[in-house]
């Protein structure tokens, strides 16, 4: 190291003489076969460069810098340390040296990190100065560097130096470059607008070199697109219009169209004026880029003009029909996307192509088609289209299938399910999505299942049906993508058990043996759901007894005597044949499953028998879980067992006669307690809820918690989020944890097997390796693109357009919280916007103040020909600026006077426009320029004077008349 630094401090003559050139370096890099060799070669080269670049000999320095530039730009090595050496070379008189230095600087300098650039201010200024000694070969890279790397300060200092090049009328090749540089300088430092903007506008004039015009149009396009409010550019509309009509250069026309697409929404007359030229371009030109730009302009800004829209849609059809060019198909779909539901007829026209594009080989095209279809969704066609898409997703490849699911979920869930009318359908659609073989959207479905449950009361019965179907299917349990969904289903089944037709069956499903495949956190939800269902069943059982008892008392004692339990009295009303079947079993411990299932199948109310079976079942399965290693599961399992213990502890189990049951205070109390625990309905939580909680005193939210890191070791963090198909592994650990579950009573397993027989593999296999379970819903059809196409086209027999007649039931109530729900304001772009605002503000000042004349002058002016036009312009600008001002200040003052003023202006405009017509073109061209020249100093004076603002109603001059 010491030796290296010693040698680097004094590059020897040997170094200079035997320096490796850039070509040598490239050869060495190319000949190094492996990555390691290459890295070694680069390291050696960097060492050399560090030494050589300090050489007093400029040639050596340049070569070193070139090598470094090569390594930095192609191998991404940081070369900021060499910034100073690059600057050192700038003043050199030998042409290749500053050029190499400029190249290095423009490739590596970064506006935020390179703080050395101010050192070069003087040198840059020298290179930009229009002197014969400066060749464009140096000035051009200087401009380039300024464009890429300048800081606001540098931009401010050098902006005046751009002026001579900018206003150079001859066809100087530097002028277009200066225009582009001026654009960047403006963007970096809006303060420079007063200096730079006028010359930029002049570049648009007819007399300019076509290259300068093209560059200037590019710059204005960039400015107008970037500005949050493009209205400051409206006064330039006549110039743009002239270019639109006259220009023979497609690049320029495209840029002009972009500008107009931005301006037209501001001023309907601009739109009316450009429709014809745009349509002509659409008809006449074959250059696809230009045609496409016209289409985009029409779709974004000229939607009110039917003829233009139709023409554009025709062109789109041509695009979509071009089989050999995927670019055009892609762009066609993208353009249709801009149309939105108001023009769904356009999509309808090319429905088949759109649907077929879902099957394109190119994922981008498929995605675009999907986006388009989703954009067409409205509440009347959502059912058909979503059904179609979900069916299609089953057949498409995994990635796209999930994209479809994603889109459907996102679109249907948008804005609290605003599209959904039929929630029963939607909930069952959610259930259907889960059956997709490639399904991987567990998180979103989980969220929506719970969310719909919370928000839409009417959907709950269907929801619990869907949840039941999911829970009961043992094949789903093995799929790690589904555990989230199952967790939601379990939660739903517990929370809304009162809508279930058969709670006992739910418990069965929740406790089936394969649940030990689930991760612990889902298991915990399962156990909790069991707890809720148990509580519910028990409460309803007791209530039945109570009801029956009071009934029995009311009906006098002679009817049935004490032979039967009260519950049967109630039950008898629904199914009379059950009366006899009921006999009180004495062997509570040896539960007779048949009765339990019998009662389940007949869907009757709870009986003592079935409840006791339920208790047994739960006890057997949940019992082992109380020893489970996972605290969540263990805790909840113990809760359940505790409840069972309490129930068993009551007299309920010892006394067989129902009458005395309810006199047991303990039971009544317990029922009350459980009821109060679960009766309160859970509601959705507003996303802003957290914000409304006031911060308690003494709590410092921003306190640094970094010392916690020491306490929390790395091993405390469970990487449970990663989804991997490691069933085997997973399974084995589970069985270790609660091995007791595995040695369940055989009878239970057999029973389960009997009930869900079709999901089981042959007998022995099931026991030995349960992870060979069939994947949920084997793909019914192999993915074959060939025949799909026909299928798909057949699928949407229905149209994408909303059908008028819809005899649907009324939309159920969806609970929405405050309107701010889900709308979180993003502060991301504010910084940029404020800058843009500054820029457009500055430009507005320049453009408008320049053209403005004191009102006294223009009222008294008698010189009509060119002066008139100027007044016109100035009036426009005044009006616009005042409109802006009145917008920003609000209409707090002069409500009446403003209306009066506007009328007055209107009149004047009419009279002036009459004058104008004869000399419109000429004055068009010269007005801007002449006005600038005339009033350069005037505007400076006015800059100091306070602006007196007279609020005006927003009338904007017709620039194009």
């Amino acid at each position, binding site marked *: 190291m010491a030796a290296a630094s010693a040698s680097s401090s004094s590059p020897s003559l040997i170094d200079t003489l035997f320096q490796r050139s850039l070509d040598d370096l490239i050869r060495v890099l190319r000949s190094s076969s492996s990555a390691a060799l290459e890295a070694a070669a680069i390291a050696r080269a960097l060492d050399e460069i560090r030494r050589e670049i300090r050489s007093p000999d400029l040639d050596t320095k340049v070569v070193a810098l070139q090598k470094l530039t090569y390594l930095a730009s*192609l191998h991404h090595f940081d070369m900021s340390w060499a910034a100073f050496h690059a600057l050192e070379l700038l003043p050199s008189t030998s042409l290749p040296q500053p050029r190499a230095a400029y190249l290095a600087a423009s490739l590596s300098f970064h506006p935020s990190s390179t703080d050395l650039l101010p050192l070069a201010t003087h040198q840059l200024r020298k290179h930009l100065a229009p002197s014969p000694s400066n060749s464009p*070969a140096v000035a051009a890279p200087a401009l380039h560097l300024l464009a890429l790397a300048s800081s606001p300060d540098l931009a401010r200092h050098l902006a005046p130096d751009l002026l001579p090049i900018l206003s150079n009328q001859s066809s100087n090749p530097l002028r277009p470059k200066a225009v582009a540089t001026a654009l960047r300088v403006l963007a970096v430092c809006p303060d420079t607008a007063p200096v730079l903007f006028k010359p930029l506008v002049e570049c648009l004039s007819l007399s300019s070199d076509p290259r300068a015009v093209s560059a200037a149009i590019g710059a204005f396009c960039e400015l107008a697109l970037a500005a949050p409010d493009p209205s400051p550019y409206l006064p330039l509309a006549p110039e743009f219009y002239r270019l639109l009509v006259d220009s023979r250069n497609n690049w320029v026309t495209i840029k002009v169209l972009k500008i107009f697409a931005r301006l037209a929404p501001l001023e309907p007359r601009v739109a009316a004026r450009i429709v014809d030229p745009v349509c002509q371009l659409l008809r006449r030109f074959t250059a696809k880029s230009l045609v496409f730009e016209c289409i985009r302009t029409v779709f974004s800004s000229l939607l009110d003009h039917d003829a233009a829209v139709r023409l554009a849609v025709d062109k789109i059809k041509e695009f979509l029909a071009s089989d050999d060019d995927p670019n055009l198909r892609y762009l066609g779909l993208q353009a249709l996307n801009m149309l939105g539901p108001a023009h769904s007829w356009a999509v309808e026209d090319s429905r088949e192509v759109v649907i077929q594009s879902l099957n394109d080989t190119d994922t981008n095209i498929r995605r675009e088609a999907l986006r388009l279809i989703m954009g067409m969704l409205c509440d009347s066609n959502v059912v058909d289209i979503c059904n179609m898409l979900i069916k299609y997703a089953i057949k498409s490849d995994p990635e796209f299938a999930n994209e479809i699911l994603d889109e459907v979920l996102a679109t249907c869930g948008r804005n609290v399910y605003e599209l959904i009318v039929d929630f029963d359908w939607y909930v069952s659609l959610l259930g259907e999505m889960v059956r997709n073989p490639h399904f991987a959207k567990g998180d979103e479905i989980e969220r929506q299942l719970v969310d719909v449950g919370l928000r839409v009361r009417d959907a709950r019965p269907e929801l619990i049906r869907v949840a039941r179907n999911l829970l009961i299917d043992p094949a789903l349990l093995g799929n790690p993508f589904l555990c989230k969904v199952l967790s939601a289903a379990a939660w739903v089944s517990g929370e809304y058990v009162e809508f279930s037709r058969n709670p006992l069956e739910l418990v069965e499903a929740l406790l089936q043996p394969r649940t030990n495949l689930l991760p612990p956190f889902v298991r915990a939800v399962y156990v909790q759901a069991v707890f809720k269902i148990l509580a519910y069943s028990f409460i309803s059982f007791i209530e039945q007894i109570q009801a029956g008892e009071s009934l029995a008392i009311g009906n006098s004692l002679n009817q049935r005597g004490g032979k039967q339990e009260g519950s049967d009295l109630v039950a008898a009303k629904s199914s009379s044949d059950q009366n006899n079947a009921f006999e009180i079993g004495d062997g509570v411990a040896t539960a007779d499953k048949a009765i339990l299932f019998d009662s389940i199948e007949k869907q009757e109310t709870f009986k003592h028998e079935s409840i006791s079976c339920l208790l047994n079942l739960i006890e057997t399965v949940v019992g082992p879980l109380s020893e489970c290693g996972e605290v969540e599961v263990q805790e909840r399992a113990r809760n359940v067992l505790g409840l069972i213990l309490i129930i068993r502890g009551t007299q309920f189990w010892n006394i067989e006669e129902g009458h005395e049951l309810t006199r047991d205070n303990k039971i009544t109390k317990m029922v009350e307690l459980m009821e109060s625990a679960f009766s309160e309905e859970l509601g959705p939580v507003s996303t802003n809820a957290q914000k409304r909680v006031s911060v308690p005193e003494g709590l410092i939210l921003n306190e640094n918690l970094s010392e916690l890191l020491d306490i929390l070791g790395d091993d405390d963090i469970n990487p449970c989020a990663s989804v991997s198909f490691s069933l085997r592994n997973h399974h084995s650990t589970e069985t270790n944890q609660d091995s007791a579950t595995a040695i369940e009573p055989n009878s239970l397993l057999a029973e389960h097997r009997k009930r869900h027989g079709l999901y089981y593999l042959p007998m022995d296999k099931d026991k030995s390796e349960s992870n060979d379970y069939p994947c949920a819903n084997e793909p019914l059809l192999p993915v074959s693109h060939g025949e799909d196409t026909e299928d798909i086209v057949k699928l949407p027999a229905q149209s994408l357009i909303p059908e008028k007649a819809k005899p649907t039931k009324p939309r159920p109530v969806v609970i929405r919280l405050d309107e701010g729900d889900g709308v979180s304001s993003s502060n991301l772009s504010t910084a940029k916007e404020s800058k843009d605002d500054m820029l457009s503000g500055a430009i507005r000042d320049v453009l408008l103040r320049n053209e403005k004349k004191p009102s006294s002058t223009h009222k008294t002016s008698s010189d009509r020909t060119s002066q008139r036009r100027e007044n016109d312009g100035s009036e426009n600008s005044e009006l616009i600026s005042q409109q802006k001002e009145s917008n920003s200040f609000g209409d707090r003052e002069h409500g009446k006077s403003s209306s009066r003023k506007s009328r007055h202006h209107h009149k004047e405009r009419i009279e002036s426009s009459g004058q104008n017509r004869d000399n419109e073109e000429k004055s068009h061209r010269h007005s801007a320029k002449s006005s600038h020249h005339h009033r350069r100093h005037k505007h400076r004076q006015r800059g100091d004077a306070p602006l007196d603002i007279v609020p005006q109603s927003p009338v904007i001059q017709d620039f194009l008349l």
Partner: protein
Amino acid sequence: MIHFVILISRQGKVRLTKWYSPYQQKERSTVIRELSGLILSRGPKLCNFVEWKGYKVVYRRYASLYFCMCIDPDDNELEILEIIHHFVEILDRYFGSVCELDLIFNFHKAYYILDEILIAGELQESSKKAVARLIAAQDSLVETAKEEAGSISNMISQAI
């Protein structure tokens, strides 16, 4: 506006990078890594546009080289394709049926040519002839300068 221009070979080697928006060195290498993964994996006969982080990347393959340009979402993709083609034609004219090796060994020339076509992410020169003329003029200037410098350094070294 064009945010950056990248040339990648089919093997993922970078042949030229030009950044018109400020990117730090670290970001640059991640961008290139992401994009080369995205673009090189696309088969032939697919469309030439890729959406990437809210931008669009227009790419086109010439022989073994992918020319990629990143643009704003409201820019015209077809226009960018034309610009790419324009650039390739100029390179072709300059080097005489250009190949990857030409760009590897004349890497700064490629930059100078690109700088004549694009400045600050905007197209500057739509005439191939004009670009060829400008580049030729610069070349001759540089050559004469080099010759002079060469002779001077010769003189100095002889003097020593």
